[in-house]
């Protein structure tokens, strides 16, 4: 994992924009209509999800190597 994905779940409306624009299929919308991380290891911290989320519900930070 090279990234840390933070989700503010109460803000998420499950629109699927982040899912559609994620180049690595890291994300999915669950049956409750909220975003979830399904493949954290694949994340390349490109920030597409955060950039496009209309609800400021998802944030990605590059992991600082200890």
């Amino acid at each position, binding site marked *: 994992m090279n990234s840390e994905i933070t989700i503010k779940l109460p803000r998420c*409306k499950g629109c699927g924009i982040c899912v559609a624009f994620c180049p690595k299929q890291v994300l999915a919308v669950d049956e409750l209509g909220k975003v979830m991380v399904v493949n954290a290891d694949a994340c390349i911290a490109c920030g597409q999800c955060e950039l496009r989320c209309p609800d*400021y519900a998802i*944030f990605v930070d590059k992991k600082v190597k200890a």
Partner: protein
Amino acid sequence: MERSFEKYFRQNRLPHLWCPGCGNGIVMKAIVQAIEKKGLDQDKTVIVSGIGCSSRASGYMDFDTLHTAHGRAIPFATGIKLANPELNVIVITGDGDCTAIGGNHFIHGCRRNVDLTVVLFNNSIYGMTGGQASPMTPTHKKATTAPYGAIDRNFDACRLAEAAGATYVARSTAFHVQHLTDMIAGGIDNKGFSFIEAICQCPTSFGRKNKMADPAKMMMWMRDNAVMKAAWDKLPDDKKTEEKFPIGLFYNESETDYATAYNEVIQIAGGADK
């Protein structure tokens, strides 16, 4: 890590009431990021909006905010700016708000060159009232009041603004969010009437009627059809198909803004030290 733009939102008002996938949230974030980029004083910045889904943005933004009446944001904003020119005044308006009911105020705001930054959230529809055609609904697109497709010709608000005298005119989209932020920041820099058209998706009222209910698909449509101004200018006419449109900075001229011009009137009238 908490993002710095969060300080520009009234946290107790979020999440916002817009539909899932609505582009308004993206444009609202672009505005606060442009404000941050330009380092505007939060206490000296006023957000003025009209009525519509997009105009609800003012309630979420942590500044002095004014949610006016349908179409009237620009006159209110003009009064604020002239009464206290040290305030930065940003106007949020919809395609119907700005070019239908507020059309006259829009062109006269441009003509006066009042120092305002006007961001038009163009979702091509009356979102709030449930999907009626606006003056910016493209011809042939469907709306609840144009069930067979609109026959009205649609405004190009950027060309309208330029012709009416705005001194900064730009367009971007919710897909090109960083570019959009830059376009708004440029408008804030311009001392005069700045107009930025932000094309954004309304999946609920426009998308569903026009076979594009998926907000991500609407954003991909923006990605695939927007052409940067420089490239657009070189594009042969037969490539400028109906769906394609230019984005970027279209016009920027420095001209005396209204408040500065009026200060001269005050000088002449002898009221400068009053």
